């Protein structure tokens, strides 16, 4: 059983933490590593590539990490963070283009079930499917 870690990168720490709360509500007792790298260190809006790389390292148990992010600098900070990691860790990381909230909910559920990294990443990408199916 794999233990895939998740990282949430957002401009806003409250936004990231609320997204994690919402995702964990599905499985309150599940042990999934979800790390947050969000906001500037003075509490403002912004992203920090060094903090993202630290969050990836913290979330990584050796089975890989899926990173979800909001927009703009969050995407570029996540890409920059990859350059700051050791090669062996970087190879285990996937930056997901999934929508942050919906993707995180799906990813947490399948990661808790022991899915491998590629399965978790695929589930995150499928995050919009239920909403799209419902709204037609």
């Amino acid at each position, binding site marked *: 059983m794999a233990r895939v870690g998740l990282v949430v990168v957002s401009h806003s720490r409250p936004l990231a933490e609320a997204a994690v709360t919402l995702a964990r509500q599905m499985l309150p007792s599940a042990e999934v590593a979800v790390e947050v790298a969000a906001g500037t260190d003075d509490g403002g809006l912004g992203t920090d590539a*060094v903090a993202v790389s630290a969050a990836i390292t913290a979330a990584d148990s050796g089975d890989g990490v899926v990173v979800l992010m909001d927009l703009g600098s969050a995407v*570029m*900070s996540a890409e*920059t963070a990859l350059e700051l990691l050791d090669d062996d860790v970087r190879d285990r990381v996937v930056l997901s283009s999934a929508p942050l909230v919906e993707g995180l909910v799906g990813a947490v559920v399948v990661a808790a079930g022991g899915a491998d990294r590629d399965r978790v990443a695929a589930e995150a990408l499928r995050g919009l499917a239920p909403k799209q199916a419902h709204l037609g």
Partner: protein
Amino acid sequence: MADQLDVAALGAWVREFARSIAEHKDELTALDSAIGDADHGANMDRGMSAAVAALEASPPADPAALLKQVGMTLVSKVGGASGPLYGTFFLRMAGALGPDPADDQTFARALRAGLDGVIARGKAEPGDKTMLDALTPACDALEAALAEGQPFGAALTAAAAAAGEGRDATVPLVARKGRASYLGERSAGHQDPGATSTALLLDAAVTALSGSGG
């Protein structure tokens, strides 16, 4: 022969850029409030102030270490898109410089490496109304002037002039990258804040480095 571009000269460039960013902070933010999220001046000032503080707290030993420290500080402290963009610029410049003082050709190659890093990070092209619209002509002008055999100071002046022209030419453009791209046609008629701060970076090089680079 003028002095080489050593750690002291490059440190002076970084400090002059930080001073200029602080001086133009409100102007940069005003430009960004017209077509972006109104944080470019404050973000760049926070990042460059932190970069100068880091130079004071732990002075780097050589040119590559200095520009790497600046880049790492910017990717961490700026917060907005200019953090990974300017941070990657300085990190790639650092990668192109060795521990030894640089000559003018090495500096030009490092500037080109920085430009390539910005392209890789932002995936923008000239004409997208970004910092590339100032940085690309600056690199081209620096290389052309050095190829003609002009002294380093004159070549830097040509590069800064090209950056300024590139900045001015962003006014009629429609933004295709970043927050401004959400505005579409409404972004035309405004000068790009990133191109504006990049022109300041080249002006700072003229001020701090013109006597070096022999």
